[in-house]
């Protein structure tokens, strides 16, 4: 059975990677990593500061979300 199998499906001879895959990997990391723009961070900080200064506004904020 082994010989028959190896005749029909010979072991893979060329196992060497033809090119470096790192550039493709790096591109995938850059594309899929979620980046939050600095203006979004500023907006989040402003909202948190507003809620900290005026705690009662939190309910109004939640109502509008």
């Amino acid at each position, binding site marked *: 059975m082994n010989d*028959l199998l190896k005749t029909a*499906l010979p*072991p893979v001879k060329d196992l060497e990677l033809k090119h470096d*895959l*790192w550039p493709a990997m*790096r591109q995938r990391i850059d594309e899929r990593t979620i980046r939050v723009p600095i203006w979004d961070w500023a907006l989040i900080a402003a909202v948190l500061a507003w809620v900290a200064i005026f705690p009662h506004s939190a309910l109004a904020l939640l109502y509008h979300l």
Partner: protein
Amino acid sequence: MDVEAFEALFRDHQSEVYRWIMRIVRDPSVAEDLTLETFWRVWKAADRFDPQRGFEPWARRIATNLAITHLRHRPREIAYATEPVAPPAPDGAVTADTLLKIQSVFRQLPPKLQAAATLALIEEQKYEDIASALGISVGGVKSRVFRAVRILRKKLEKVGITP
């Protein structure tokens, strides 16, 4: 893990991961895609990496799971002629039609059995390495290979091939 450390890890191990996947899927472009997917999962789960257990077995296990998933979704049938495509070969020789039938029957094996049989019988990898990659015991690998051979024998007999 920062990107520079990950790049070093990637460059050190990409060839070995590719070779392992290639042995299972036997298709260079698929093996490249699955190598990238393996490392992408490594990157996402880097916090769970245990250096004491070694990177290679961990990556190989992820790679094997992805390769088996690929086998599960690829077409299993290879069209082969019902009539012999070549005249009967002399004793001991195997016709092209027989080879196609064997390939087709092999691809119809359940993916987990197919992966174990490919690695053990065709690629002749160590049973310990296969067991580690499949996340089962060496006995479990032997069992899968035995079941694969039994199914192959039955199906080959049905298409007129007696191994």
